[in-house]
């Protein structure tokens, strides 16, 4: 009986963890859907967004280290702090500017190139942004606090203790992440279905050439999609950065999104969510039931093996579009 109660707790925590994975996977899906590009830099975008948010919030002077080295000055901070909401809005603006620059300096020059070329360009972009983030804001680990609560939810613990005699652990940050992810997905779906720009984005996703022929600007759509992906990266960066502090490892959360994408499909927003939930729950339950028999640390292994099975039997993922090539 105890095992079942513990498994229920793990199931709930797995769902919440899955939402955190899905937040990262969403950014990949958006860009892949609109441009067919697998954006290797999505994890680094989350790191860059979180670094920028903390930098703005704490009134850090960007490129301070470089300025001090060149001019012999000792500037570090502007001497003010910025409220969280304003800092998030300003960071969003920086991500839009970044999207514009990426389109202008990278993507525009690669129109018509094979997807592998665009993929390689995003690898270069990832390395560039890693360095840029460090040079702009420094390599120290930064504390990110935008007022999100963290720690055990005592109300859930109390209720489950009354029901089962064992209080469940649910992190309040995970609850917030779930709510925010749900709102984000609803907003993205509404945007794609009911706005002119959203429909244009879907048209580009369906057929670049046809979309161009009816007057849709590919450049505008790319800037828009990268801006949205940048905003999603900011949300993921806030959630993961609140947990661990903002540091380079944040960019590695992209590794957790890969199996989610293989499972859910690279072109489906609901697929990213469902894939995230399956991976989150699956890896946690596998670790709970099977982990102790094989020495533990099975979570990464499980996620990738499950993704591999999908690649063999359903390569387009659960919700992805089936690719049929006629030769």
């Amino acid at each position: 009986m105890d095992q079942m109660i513990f498994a229920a707790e793990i199931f709930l925590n797995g769902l919440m963890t899955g939402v955190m994975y899905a937040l990262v996977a969403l950014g990949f899906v958006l860009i892949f859907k609109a441009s067919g590009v697998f954006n290797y830099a999505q994890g680094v975008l989350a790191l860059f967004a979180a670094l920028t948010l903390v930098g703005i919030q704490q009134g850090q002077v960007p490129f301070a280290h470089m300025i001090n080295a060149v001019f012999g000055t000792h500037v570090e901070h502007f001497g003010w702090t910025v409220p969280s909401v304003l800092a998030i809005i300003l960071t969003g603006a920086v991500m839009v500017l970044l999207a514009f620059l990426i389109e202008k300096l990278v993507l525009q020059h690669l129109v018509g190139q094979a997807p592998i070329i665009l993929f390689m360009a995003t690898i270069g972009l990832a390395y560039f942004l890693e360095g840029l983030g460090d040079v702009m804001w420094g390599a120290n680990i930064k504390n990110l606090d935008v007022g999100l609560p963290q720690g055990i939810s005592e109300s859930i613990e109390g209720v489950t203790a009354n029901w089962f005699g064992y209080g469940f652990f649910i992190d309040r940050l995970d609850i917030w992440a779930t709510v925010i992810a749900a709102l984000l997905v609803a907003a993205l779906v509404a945007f794609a279905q009911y706005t002119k720009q959203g429909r244009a984005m879907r048209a580009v996703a369906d057929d670049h050439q046809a979309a161009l022929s009816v007057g849709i600007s590919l450049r505008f759509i790319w800037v828009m999609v990268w801006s949205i992906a940048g905003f999603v990266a900011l949300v993921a960066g806030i959630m993961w950065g609140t947990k661990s502090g903002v540091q380079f490892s944040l960019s590695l959360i992209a590794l957790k999104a890969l199996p989610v994408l293989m499972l859910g499909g690279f072109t489906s927003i609901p697929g990213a969510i469902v894939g995230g939930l399956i991976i989150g729950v699956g890896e946690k339950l596998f670790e709970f039931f099977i982990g102790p028999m094989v020495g533990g640390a099975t979570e990464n292994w499980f996620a990738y093996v499950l993704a591999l099975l999908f690649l063999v039997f359903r390569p387009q993922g659960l919700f992805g579009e089936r690719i049929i090539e006629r030769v």
Partner: protein
Amino acid sequence: MKLTFTAFAAATLMATAPAMADLVVPNLSYRTGAYGANGTQYADGFNDYFTLLNERDGGIGGEKIKVPECETAYNTEKGVECYEATKDTGALVYNPLSTGITYQLIPKVAVDKKVLYTPGYGRTSAKNGKVFEWVFNAPANYWDGASVAIKYLLDQNGGDLNGKKIALVYHNSAYGKEPVRTLQDLAEKHGFTLSELPVDAPGQEQKSQWLQIRREQPDYVIMWGWGVMNQVAIQEAANIRFPMENFIGIWWSGSEVDVVPVGAKANGYKALTFHGVGQDYPVYDDLQEYVIEPGKASQGGEHVGSVLYSRGMYAALVISEAIRKAQEIAGVSAISPEQLREGFEQLDITPERLEELGLPDFGPEIKLSCDNHGGSGMARMQQWDAEGGKWSLISEFTEPDQEILAPLIAEDSDAYAKEAGITPRDC
């Protein structure tokens, strides 16, 4: 044109390569990648101590010290590349701050005849100098750390851990697995139950492990983490309301970068250390005068006094003392790696000598020999004060349990000797 190019190439080489008379101590550092925040501070301390010796004393025995830096990003392949790229520049000794890189370099340094110094990390059984002629890991190694942690807990529990439950949360890598066998043997000896909880690198997600800890309610948690794993573990411990004073990290899980991101909830967290904390030592006055104020500090002196900075500085101090001893034995100032190895084997950093160096009671006495390359293994406990934003030392230097460790070291080093075809030296 050809002549101009040759002259240019020669001038470039002269400018970049150290003069052969310099003492070359390459710094295989990592300032980028997942562990860059940790590596940067250590590298700064390492560089700054040698800068201090150059600026204040004119080097060691009249020889300036060159510290060419090579970025490894904590990547084993890059670490080996750095070693290969610097070994023919007159390099005397390597300190790569990575157990993975150390394992790759151990067979190489024996062939190339370079000293490998791995304080507090690397292959534990390298303490056996009969087998590992070129490797030194004083003042303490991982198994010493595990034993001192248990001794501390014994002390806290009136000498009895019988029936207690201890969980080990460890980085699922060669580094993280190092203490497992030692703790298993100590569990058998002292009657406590050990549960082992591996965490996959980098350690951003640890929910399963901490839910298990919440269910099993161990009396103590010991952690062998590095990088983001530390911050997440301390945060998760706070989330499940695990008492911080019962949570102990190895020295690589006990720096400011591990606790500051967690904020006030990290208060009371403990970690092992094999050196002092803070800046209340005379050497920092000299660093201020000769290195920081003249603008010669690595990275502008941003991390002076942090735990990892102090550890890097301490590693440089031990190397410089070994160089000094080697010069004394050889009677020359421009020593070779072979002579440095002799210097290490006859190293004796007494408390009096540490005081002369401006670091009274900073580390344990380090007395090495042909067969003992690891020193006494003494370590002490530090505790985080979140409000004050500083670590405080809460125990004296404690010796590990050699009754348990000595047979383990012998077993592991003998196995390596057989595997590598090494005949142990007579010491």
